[in-house]
């Protein structure tokens, strides 16, 4: 049986690196006594596969992994078992069965939905709606990231939405391409945002992943098969 698990990653857990998250989840599966299958090889581990690694420091409502089990169990029960073995910062929100033979999560991921929160310059003034509009109108959004790679973010961006202020933080929703072919590195976008806004938005930006989207039959869909239209 193959089960897809969705969990949050908030508070202190945002500082767990992806590699450490996999280890942490392996240990939780053991503590919860989930009858997982082991990987082959010299160091057998529970067979789990995450969809898309999250950058260090980012929070998330939508971390997904698949786990393979040796016996059938009610996915709701798996959720409860796991939650009894996980800190609240990594709580499981949902678990559902998926076909054993379906392609890996990682190969299906196509987009990710983020909320960015950035501090704005004291006394600064910018019509963000206009800025977003001009971003949308531009043919290309070129930038050079900290590693010196030149990128055009235009084709990686599916949606930008200005959501206004909460206190001193400006909030922007971004849907970017994700996955192995085209992938918007959210840190690149944050850096781009700072320079595009002429320093109105400031780094570091706090990132929150709201959802992950997979390739569906016609449109994108959530990892639990809900169709979404952007």
């Amino acid at each position: 049986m193959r089960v897809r698990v969705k969990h949050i990653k908030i508070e202190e857990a945002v500082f767990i690196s992806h590699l450490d998250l996999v280890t942490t989840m392996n240990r939780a599966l053991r503590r919860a006594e989930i009858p997982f299958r082991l990987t082959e090889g010299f160091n057998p581990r529970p067979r789990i596969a995450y969809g898309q690694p999250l950058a260090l420091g980012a929070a998330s409502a939508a971390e997904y992994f698949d786990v393979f089990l040796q016996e059938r169990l009610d996915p709701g029960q798996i959720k409860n078992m796991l939650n009894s073995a996980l800190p609240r910062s990594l709580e499981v929100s949902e678990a559902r069965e998926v076909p054993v033979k379906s392609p890996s999560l990682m190969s299906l991921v196509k987009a990710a939905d983020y909320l960015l929160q950035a501090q704005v310059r004291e006394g600064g003034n910018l019509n963000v709606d206009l800025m977003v509009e001009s971003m949308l109108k531009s043919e290309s959004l070129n930038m050079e990231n900290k590693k010196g790679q030149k990128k055009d973010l235009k084709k990686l961006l599916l949606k930008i939405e200005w959501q206004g202020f909460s206190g001193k933080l400006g909030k922007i929703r971004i849907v970017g391409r994700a996955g192995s072919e085209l992938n918007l590195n959210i840190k690149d976008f944050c850096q781009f945002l700072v320079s595009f806004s002429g320093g109105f938005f400031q780094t570091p930006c706090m990132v929150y992943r709201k959802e992950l989207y997979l390739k569906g039959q016609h449109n994108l869909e959530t990892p639990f098969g809900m169709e979404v239209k952007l």
Partner: protein
Amino acid sequence: MHYQEWKDLYTVEKPVRYVGGEWNLEKKQFDQVQVTVAMAFPDVYEVGMSHLGLKILYHLINSRPEYACERVFAPWPDREKKLRDQGRLLQTLESGRPLKDFQVLGFSLQHELLYTNVLNMLELGGVPWRNRDREGWPLVIAGGPGTYNPEPLADFVDCFFLGEGEEAILDFLRVVAEAGKNQDREEVLQEIVKLPGWYVPAFYELVKVNNFFCPEPGKDNIPRPVKKQVVSSLEESYYPHKIIVPFTEVIHDRISLEVSRGCTRGCRFCQAGMTYRPVRERSLETLQEMAGELLKNTGYDEISLLSLSSTDYSCIGELVDFLLSNYRGLGVGVALPSLRADNFSVEMARRVQQVRKTGLTFAPEAGTQRLRNVINKGVKEEDLLETVKTAFAAGWWSVKLYFMLGLPTEEDEDVKGIVELSHKVARAGKELAPRRPQITVNVSTFIPKAHTPFQWEAFIGREDVQRRQKILQEGLRGRIFRLSWHDYNMSLVEALLARGDRRAGKILEMVWQKGSRLDSWSEHFRPEKWLEAIQKSYSPELVYGTFPTEIPLPWSHLSAGVSRDYLLQERDKAFQGCITPDCRQGCQNCGLCGSLNVSMEIAGGD
């Protein structure tokens, strides 16, 4: 998490060190407990969270509803700078309270290179670092191997505890609880000094004898010597059923199952061998139960059988078999961290490590039989070679050999012996290993440690070390060897603090004030600061010299249980090259069991 808090963490290296929130952590309401303890480990999180003693005491104290214990580790310099720039105090992971708000602040003194961190953490936590400047809480206490010569820290720590804390910490906390929150410091200290095993420097006066300042009781009823305390039965002693599981990989990231405590092989340089006596073992049944509970409550997939010498444990074969047959199917591995150079150990290693993923480690410590006799390391060359041959034939190709430089009576010849022995091991490897062997030769510097038969011996000078390192370097060329040694400057600081009196504490304070910290991290270690301070205000004799046996040493007011006569006798035997057998085969009259009213505890034993 608020933006500012998030940003402060996001902009330092490895923020996960400072956030807490791990599985099995204990968090209590402070208004519902009688005593609050901050357990301070003066190194970074990944090192501190690898230490079993810290976990035992943390869970033990928290197992009592009337006490709360939280953790704090040394911050990395980027984090420290942030705290200082923002005028914030160092705080615990659990409740985020600054150290100054606790009643007890306990430091674990694992080795001397951590001492600058002790001063730094006190200051960062808002606690005056000199004990005489403190009023009210917290009481600053310390335990661990460093307490066997506490003098360099005696101006900073209020009370030192000698020995194993599992029983004593509860007695101590009871005294603190009874004192109530408004008690006068002095009065509490007066109660603590009555407890066995506690050295409270405030009640001692420094007396100069020859070259040293030695503490002597200032009035009646102050103990001399202060005697180390041990748990009389490991089997009956507390162990945690669950331990904190870090969110990030720490140095020892596995369950440490303490199968036994103490080692009685009697290596004359080894402080742990003298101070952790007598040998006490847990029963097989208890260990089986502990393993099951810890695996279930942590989710770890590796168990390490912890002991100063794990293959000495009486029921090692049965325990290994039990763990393998019950848990291997679930992907749980077993590790044996300390192996003897004998075929039995290789056989054990073979059983737990079906894949030869990591190398085998042996510690002959000295290169010639003559010197091994001096230090009482009962490893014969034939046995070592026989053992490595078995290991190579069984599929290992990587072998690590540990040696020391600067042992008493060492000559260049002995160092050439290291070269020869390593070549013999290499030759055996070429002949028998499944692929090109890798021989790692790891060389540390001998430090004369308090309460060992070599406590009076000299610390080797820089030139001798350099010449001998060169012998090694020239003798161990070729890709087959990997040679590494301990930084001599670090050893020098260790020697200064391991054998120094109160004046070494002045050096420590001076060097810390000039910005030294995290001295065990080569990227932060600044030897020039130490060398300058030693040159300016210390006597080199106190670092390097041979100490006279007739006069008291700076730690003579403390007793590790082993008698002075025994230490002297062992020292004489060392110079005659006479071996002293393991006291498992018969008591060698070191005086400890009688003095502490304990005896050896052997599992399944008679």
